[in-house]
């Protein structure tokens, strides 16, 4: 026993088989009832709540040794959360990892949907902090459950009404509520509303895991998802009105980067893989300057 390295002492993908079985049952139920929040017995994970414990458990339950895993955090593959979760599964499951959206079979994501269109056979796992879209309007869980059960979603529009009354438009920019197949109102996790249209009719399976709140919900492939709105204030996506300064993309979601204390700024794709892919194909933005050979 003593020659086992710590990694080998764990079951494949960290969780024991009974736990994975329990999570898979919740996932299957979620897929059978799109948008419905299914409770599951969330486990303690070796990371703090808020760092993707729900997403990690869903990913662990989905992974098989042949999978190729991609982990993104706010669109980037190289931020702390993404790096640590990717390394976690490299060590506990030994699966291959990738940064390329097209090559991945399982993608765990925090707050973004990749720009590159997903394909059939891929699984997109979202990390969800608060799965209940009605939470900030109705604090009682017993009452929100009843509202989902009886399809009483008028309250969701009260939130949008407040937005328009206060800001003249629907100011909700992320975690924008959606209705799934005309039935459940769902929180799409804090993705920007720019990504909302990508939820609908996606060929990939989309799974949502909330660890602290112990809920899993799902969108099976080709599910219709509609963003809520008013007849006279229709849903609109929004992004910074610029092109990417590195790759010149006009159609991707942008992050604003402050470059100095003189008001200098640049806009870059939040999806690093998409941006790098475009640059590799020779597309250039306003500020792109290739690093000189041997600089690193």
């Amino acid at each position: 026993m003593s020659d086992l390295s710590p990694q080998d002492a764990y079951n494949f993908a960290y969780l024991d088989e009974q736990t994975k079985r329990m999570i898979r049952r919740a996932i299957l139920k979620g897929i059978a009832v799109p948008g419905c929040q299914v409770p599951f017995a969330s486990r303690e994970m070796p990371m703090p709540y808020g760092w993707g414990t729900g997403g990690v458990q869903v990913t662990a339950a989905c992974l098989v040794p042949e999978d190729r895993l991609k982990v993104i955090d706010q669109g980037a593959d190289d931020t702390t959360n993404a790096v640590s979760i990717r390394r976690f599964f490299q060590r506990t499951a030994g699966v291959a990892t990738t940064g390329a959206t097209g090559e991945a079979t399982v993608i765990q994501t925090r707050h973004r949907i990749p720009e590159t269109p997903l394909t059939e056979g891929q699984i997109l796992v979202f990390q969800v902090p608060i799965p209940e879209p009605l939470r900030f309007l109705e604090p009682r869980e017993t009452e929100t459950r009843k509202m989902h059960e009886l399809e009483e979603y008028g309250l969701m529009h009260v939130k949008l009404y407040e937005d328009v009354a206060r800001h003249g438009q629907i100011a909700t920019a992320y975690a924008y509520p959606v209705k799934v197949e005309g039935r459940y109102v769902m929180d799409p996790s804090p993705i920007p509303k720019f990504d909302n249209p990508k939820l609908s009719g996606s060929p990939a399976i989309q799974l949502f895991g909330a660890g602290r709140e112990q809920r899993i919900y799902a969108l099976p492939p080709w599910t219709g998802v509609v963003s809520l709105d008013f007849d006279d204030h229709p849903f609109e996506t929004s992004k910074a009105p610029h092109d990417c300064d590195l790759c010149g993309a006009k159609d991707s979601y942008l992050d604003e980067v402050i470059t100095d204390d003189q008001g200098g700024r640049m806009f870059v794709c939040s999806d690093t893989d998409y941006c790098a892919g475009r640059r590799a194909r020779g597309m250039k933005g306003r500020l792109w300057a290739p690093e000189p050979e041997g600089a690193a």
Partner: protein
Amino acid sequence: MTVMEKVAATDQPLLKVEGLTRRYGPRIGCADVSFDLYPGEVLGIVGESGSGKSTLLSCLAGHQRADLGRVSYDGRDVLAMAETERRRLGRTDWAYVHQNPRDGLRMGVSAGGNVGERLMAVGARHYGQIRGKAVDWLGRVEIAADRVDDRPSAFSGGMQQRLQIARNLVTSPRLVFMDEPTGGLDVSVQARLLDLLRGLVRDLGLSVIIVTHDLAVVRLLAHRLMVMKSGRVVEQGLTDQVLDDPQHAYTQLLVSSVLQV
């Protein structure tokens, strides 16, 4: 035909209650209550604290389960109804005005949003129309249109109560339950609220069940009166008749206990 004539033309009771009983373990909440409520009629329920008035009201409104008895609304059995249907009634045909406006309002949502909620709950999806209707209803309960985006927490107690009434009446309900609507308000605000309620009830032809311990309120508003004591109805009849010529010993006590100014 005016509203009152339309109301008079129907001779079917809107709400029919038979032998309604609610027990809290061995104790009685309310026992064996029966009455009919006709369209356009205002029924007052009076009695001392703990006499079962509020229990009766919440059983009728479906907030609590009754143990025995039958309640039929417009020919439909309310107690046997599926919860979906009862809650739909609760936000279309029925309205419930709480004693404390904080129970009936969403304090974190603007006045306009509070009034619009019931509209959106029954499917209104046009912002301009919802807002127009909200402003219209704020006007009807004498709240200035420029307060439409203020939160109820910025309102006085009387305004909060009026807002609660607007929020409840916006979907044109036919039956309104009121639990001490003037409780906790000072007398001049009470008088204005009563005046407003009387106008709305008459103009809209509402049927109202109003629970109160204030005999002046029922004298002004109610057509008929039910007196409760220890969970049972001890006397009922026309309001003026009951108040001017009380028969039951408890009613006599109640009427003679009112302070004269």
